[in-house]
């Protein structure tokens, strides 16, 4: 067996063994799997096959997801690249008697496994995907594999972009022009297709446009969607085209990186060092954040804050420098997806549910989660609950703004009363704190370290469980007590607020007795 195969197989074997040697991780894995099973079984109940929505909608969603993931992953190539190698790989393999092409293949295989783990959240989508579109568990796994392939190609594209552009602003400008030019061309063509499509409503026109063969040429997302749909429909030709294009792209990237730029080690080294320092820093308690390349310091000094409130003031200064706006790109995308979903489904409650669902995926990105990785907040001589509240203060305007932007259009789409809109805004804002509470509770239980993929799985499951009581309250008030929708949503918000405060209170000691450690 070659050394690289030995390394790959033993790394995988030891990873599995490690799980069995760590009871907490094993329990976490089992709970995560149990939650997936729960989602699958609960999603299977009371499904009427006659009421399924058109499959074309699902295929359009798959395309949108893959396209978004590919673009977001590949564009990292303009910043610091994306490395599929560990620092140990760089130190031990790059300096050893290995062909650069062989090492690239090794890196690709290693990355494939990681990409698959990243897509585990897709499994939690079973319930609605099954209920709305009749998708099976096998379908979901196919979507997951397609997702992993998309991330994989995205990483390759990022590496390629980085290799070609590193060290030259001119090249970065050209590559950015080409990259965003291609995306813009597809977007414009899509809009053109929607405009000229003949359909009863905008949804049907969008679906016609999304099914256009031209979109199959969209990098990664186009042909992977084709392949995934091929598997779901048993269409061998589509599978062959999808798979063929995937392999073809892989070979193309491979050739471009390894042949046109044989000495890719330097580029990989830089990206690996960035990623390694991020991992090391995370392990060793240093905050990590995506900072702009050029930061304008501006006015210096905190100016305000005393005791615990200094944390909130510090966040204000950091956010100003980091150009962290109340509404970032991810929030805008979430809002657009929610509004589009509600518009097409013609159900504002479904839109509200979708917004809560999307919120689960993004709530961990606040500055509070970075704060937990540094020692200062633990050392500060202030009551833990007070520190926790000030640490989360910055999330209030962020969540409120996101919710306002998401739900104001609901008023114009559904012509509902303002109280319902206010209920939605408050409901989503409070739900944000509920999910933060869940995340903090996980920090409380497992500390800063732990297996990321398993923790994400557990986080998703627990968020869904935490949301259930509030939903039950709203449903009971709406269906049994026959209260207006606005009151039901407000009641749910109030219930969730109490639950969130309870969770925050239980997890307050995360700032006093946390297992803050670099192990």
């Amino acid at each position, binding site marked *: 067996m070659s050394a690289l195969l030995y390394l790959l197989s033993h790394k995988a074997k030891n990873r599995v063994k490690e799980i069995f040697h*760590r*009871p*907490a991780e094993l329990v976490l894995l089992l709970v995560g799997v149990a939650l997936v099973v729960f989602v699958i079984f609960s999603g299977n109940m009371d499904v009427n096959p006659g009421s399924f929505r058109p499959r074309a909608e699902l295929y359009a969603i798959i395309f949108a997801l893959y396209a978004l993931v590919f673009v977001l992953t590949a564009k990292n190539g303009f910043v610091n690249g994306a490395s599929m190698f560990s620092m140990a790989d760089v130190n031990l393999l790059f300096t050893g008697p290995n062909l650069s092409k062989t090492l690239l293949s090794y890196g690709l295989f290693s990355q494939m496994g990681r990409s698959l783990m990243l897509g585990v959240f897709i499994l939690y989508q079973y319930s609605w995907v099954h209920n709305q579109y009749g998708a099976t568990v096998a379908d979901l796994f196919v979507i997951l594999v397609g997702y992993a392939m998309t991330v994989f190609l995205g990483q390759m594209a990022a590496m390629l972009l980085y290799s070609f552009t590193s060290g030259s602003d001119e090249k970065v400008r050209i590559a950015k022009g080409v990259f965003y030019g291609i995306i813009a061309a597809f977007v414009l063509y899509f809009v053109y297709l929607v405009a000229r499509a003949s359909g009863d409503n905008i949804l049907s026109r969008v679906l016609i446009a999304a099914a256009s063969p031209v979109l199959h040429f969209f990098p990664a997302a186009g042909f992977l969607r084709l392949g995934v749909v091929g598997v779901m429909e048993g269409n061998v030709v589509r599978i062959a085209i999808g798979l063929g294009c995937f392999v073809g792209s892989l070979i193309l990237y491979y050739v471009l990186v390894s042949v046109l730029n044989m000495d890719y080690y330097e580029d990989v080294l830089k990206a690996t060092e960035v990623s390694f320092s991020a991992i*090391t*820093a995370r392990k*060793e*308690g*240093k*905050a990590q*954040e995506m*900072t702009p390349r050029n*930061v304008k*310091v501006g006015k*210096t*000094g*905190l100016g305000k*804050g*005393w*005791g*615990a409130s*200094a*944390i909130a*003031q*510090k966040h204000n*200064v*950091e*956010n100003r*420098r*980091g150009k962290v706006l109340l509404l970032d790109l991810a929030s805008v995308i979430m809002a657009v997806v929610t509004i589009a979903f509600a518009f097409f489904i013609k159900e504002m409650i479904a839109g509200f549910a979708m917004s809560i669902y999307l919120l689960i995926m993004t709530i961990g990105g606040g500055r509070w989660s970075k704060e937990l990785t*540094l*020692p*200062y907040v*633990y*050392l*500060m*001589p*202030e*009551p833990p609950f007070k520190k926790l509240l000030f640490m989360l203060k910055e999330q209030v305007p962020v969540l409120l703004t996101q919710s306002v932007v998401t739900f104001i259009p609901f008023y114009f789409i559904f012509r509902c009363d303002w109280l319902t809109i206010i209920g939605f805004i408050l409901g989503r804002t409070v739900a944000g704190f509920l999910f933060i509470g869940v995340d903090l509770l996980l920090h409380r239980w497992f500390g800063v370290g732990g297996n990321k993929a398993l923790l994400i799985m557990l986080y998703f499951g627990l968020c869904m469980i935490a949301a259930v009581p509030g939903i039950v309250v709203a449903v009971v008030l709406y269906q049994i007590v026959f209260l207006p929708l606005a009151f039901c949503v407000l009641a749910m918000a109030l219930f969730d607020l109490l639950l969130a405060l309870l969770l925050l209170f239980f997890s307050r000691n995360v700032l*006093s*007795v*946390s*297992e*803050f*450690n*670099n*192990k």
Partner: protein
Amino acid sequence: MLQVNHVTKKYGKLIANRDISFQIGDGEIAVLLGPNGAGKSTIIKCIAGLLRFDGEILIDSLGNKTLNAKHRLGYVPEMPAVYDMLTVGEHLEFMLRAYKMEDDGTADRLLERFELLDKKDKLGKELSKGMLQKLSICCALVHRPSVIIFDEPMVGLDPHAIKQLKEVFLELRQNGATVLISTHMIDSVEAYWDKAYIMKDGAFVAERSASDTSEISLEDLFFALTEGGEDA
């Protein structure tokens, strides 16, 4: 004063610290020596209140997790941890505000001492490894703690900063502070320790006071114990 009474720290089945007890008085400098993996950083983190443990740790006779104890404690972590988006000066302002302390000029004095004053408006993300370490030390000292723990403080420092830090150690002792320094660079602390503790496999294997008259040097004792010798 720092008192550590029967502290045991376990990670699952692994015992990182085994029944550790020691005491460092006011105006004393203690050094914690040991090879990699001996458990030095773990006990330091327990004292800093960052880890759960069995036993008792008192800072000026207060439980180390009480707010009053936290007020009195300064901690320099093994890996410097700073905020990317805060300037050097703002780090110290933040610490003073967080500890509810007025700035009496200590912040600038510390920055000057560690040659950071001209970098006051530099962001955390722009600092080199050595500068990060210096800033981390300044953050730990700016609120004028009475018990200061240093985890491998010399790593990454330039000769000037090492000289300054050694002077800081002596000044802290002179001013009655309690200082605990964890290190594996014995020669860097040889000149000024009052107490020395040698750790191996999570436990103390030797304890020595500066007033002890022993023919064997601390360094020789360290190697004798950590390279398979008997407990002293």
